[in-house]
């Protein structure tokens, strides 16, 4: 019975990382599940669910040669679950403002105490070096209702941060 693992790979960005890594996994008999692969700063980061016959250590050894040749660091965790465990977000929250220390902690603490279960958070630092902007998109579930999140956003706005909430009404058809 093949088990699921979460494979994390980080390294300086260069062409061919995804192709070489996934080829090594395929050659090693692995199946791939859900993945997030993106450039962060000058790095390329991969988090991917991998189904593999052996142990976490064996999976690590499987990808080690290709990782070393590309200058990547690898981390393997045993996964508790496999695919087909999606949760559906029902709100999108957008935060934008001048970048400042603690903005993520402040926003996410307020939203967590208002019942937000974060499913996906993406943030970017935009603007210029002199005047950085912090932009954050959060998809999640309003476990305690939308009104509670709206109240939390009111508090966030008092700090001079733009914060909007939009309900996700998913069409299924």
């Amino acid at each position: 019975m093949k088990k699921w693992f979460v494979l994390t790979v980080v390294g300086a960005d260069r062409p061919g990382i995804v192709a070489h890594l996934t080829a090594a996994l395929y050659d090693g008999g692995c199946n791939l599940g859900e993945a997030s692969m993106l450039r962060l700063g000058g790095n390329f980061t991969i988090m991917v669910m991998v189904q593999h016959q052996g142990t976490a250590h064996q999976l690590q050894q499987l990808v080690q040669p290709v990782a070393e040749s590309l200058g990547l660091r690898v981390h393997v965790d045993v996964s508790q679950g496999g695919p087909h465990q999606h949760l559906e977000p029902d709100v999108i929250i957008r935060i934008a403002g001048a970048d400042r220390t603690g903005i993520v902690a402040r926003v996410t603490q307020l939203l967590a105490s208002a019942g937000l279960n974060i499913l996906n958070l993406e943030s970017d630092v935009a603007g210029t070096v002199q005047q950085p902007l912090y932009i954050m998109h959060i998809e999640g579930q309003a476990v305690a209702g939308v009104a509670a999140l709206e109240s939390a956003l009111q508090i966030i706005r008092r700090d001079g941060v733009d914060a909007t909430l939009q309900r996700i009404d998913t069409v299924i058809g």
Partner: protein
Amino acid sequence: MAVRDILLYPNPQLKQVAQPVQHFDAALQAALTDLLDTMYACPGTVGIAAPQLAIDLRLVIVDASCARKPPDQPVHGRLVLVNPQIMEAHGEVLGREGCLSVPDYTGNVQRAEEITVVARDAEGDVQQYQFAGYEARIVQHELDHLDGILFLDRVVSRRTDLFPRKKYR
């Protein structure tokens, strides 16, 4: 009446262009009944298109009132659209879609915000409808099925702007 199996992607039949309805007969009524029974058997489903039941006809049902959360705008309720055509479309908006034929996946899709649709009803009479927002999204999703297009063909990356960008006219 019958709840029928829904064709699942990547069944190639979902990629075919459906044929116009020619006869408003008992066979059409039977197809409609199956579509309704199947749609209402899937809670939270707000539309279904004939090709999803392997029925090769330009026939869809929409019912925005079946949404898990009631839509903010007034909606038409259950509508049968036969040989529907979008005559006008305005605005663009991003929203979330899933599909009975693609279980366990939702994605963000750009759609027109308001549309005018001309279609025949179950009796064959020509009707014109205005749809906006959530209901307009359902209609566009279902009409795509008639042309062999799945929302998978239109999903935009999660990392692109997830917010509606209104086009100012």
